[in-house]
């Protein structure tokens, strides 16, 4: 089994938030997993499907891309972004129904140990059950 190249895209309403989450995930995988940010809309709070599409293009490979979102319109914008991608790639781009920080963290770790896209997505989504306190 070759090295997985699953890419992760972090979609948030805030550019700073996306970069911060990426920073945390990078600490665990140190460049092994392609991670791209798509936060904010031209310096204001919001989400931008064209920015998300660029991020997907940046990290896309045949192994697929997992999108992590904060809430609400991040999901809508991600769905629009996927419609802007070439049709043959769309099936390999999934949005995780996962908490942003924990989900990204877990997804990055699982991707770094060569899990499949569906396994990475499930692990990210299961992170909502992790006990914190």
């Amino acid at each position, binding site marked *: 089994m070759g090295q997985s190249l699953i890419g992760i895209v972090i979609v948030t309403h805030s550019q700073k938030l996306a970069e911060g989450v990426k920073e945390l995930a990078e600490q665990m995988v140190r460049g092994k997993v392609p991670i791209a940010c798509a936060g*904010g809309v*031209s310096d204001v709070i919001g989400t931008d499907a064209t920015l998300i599409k660029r991020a997907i293009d940046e990290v896309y490979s045949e192994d697929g891309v997992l999108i992590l979102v904060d809430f609400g319109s991040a999901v809508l*914008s991600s*769905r*629009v972004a996927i*419609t802007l991608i070439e049709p043959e790639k769309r099936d390999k781009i999934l949005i995780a129904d996962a908490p942003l920080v924990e989900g990204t963290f877990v997804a990055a770790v699982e991707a770094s140990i060569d899990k499949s896209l569906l396994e990475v997505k499930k692990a990210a989504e299961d992170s909502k059950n992790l006990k914190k306190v």
Partner: protein
Amino acid sequence: MPTDEITVNLLLKIMNNSLEVMKANEKYLTHLDAEIGDADHGINMVRGFSLVKNRLSSLTNPNIGTILNTVGMSLLESVGGAAGPLYGMFYIKGSEPTRGKTEINKKDLAALLEAGLKGIQTIGGGAVPGEKTMVDALDPAVKAVKESINNDGITFMMALEKATEAAKEGMKKTIPLIAKKGRASYLGERSIGHQDPGATSSYLLLQTMLDTLNGKIGLEVTKFGTDGSIIEEMYI
């Protein structure tokens, strides 16, 4: 003046007028969005249509499809809330049946509005009328135009009037509804009694199209007070 179709120049005029209408109603849309949302719909639509105007002014050899696509992409890039991807998708999908065309007739209008509505429903969790969203205004508008296609007794302008009237009625019908989608859905019963901002801006965009085609001198802009009453009709 009455017309049978929307030309490229008229469509550009409609889009520029849309900015003026959003500016005139910014406070009203913000007020509606403050009641059941995050109070940024007004400013979002102004920002969005400002970028639309900007991008359209530098569009070379425009046709109906490229204009609508440019409108959609501009809104995606500048409107932060849910209205960005929703309206963005609406115009982008609406551009598909009009690719390469130089005018929009009755049939084209039905096709583009329907494609736009379906686009919204695809990404927005399949919203249907009754959920207190822009679909409450757009769905009846689409139905009204579609009904007119095979009826030669209904002219293009009549079809657009019916669609605009249907959108207006749909917008008003959102007042007693409980929100089922979006941030307003978190309010549950507290969303009752407030008109949906997305349905309102959808109606305003259709009204702008109608007013522009009626060749009103300058542009008559309807300004709504915070209680929904018309407080000013002004010419620009």
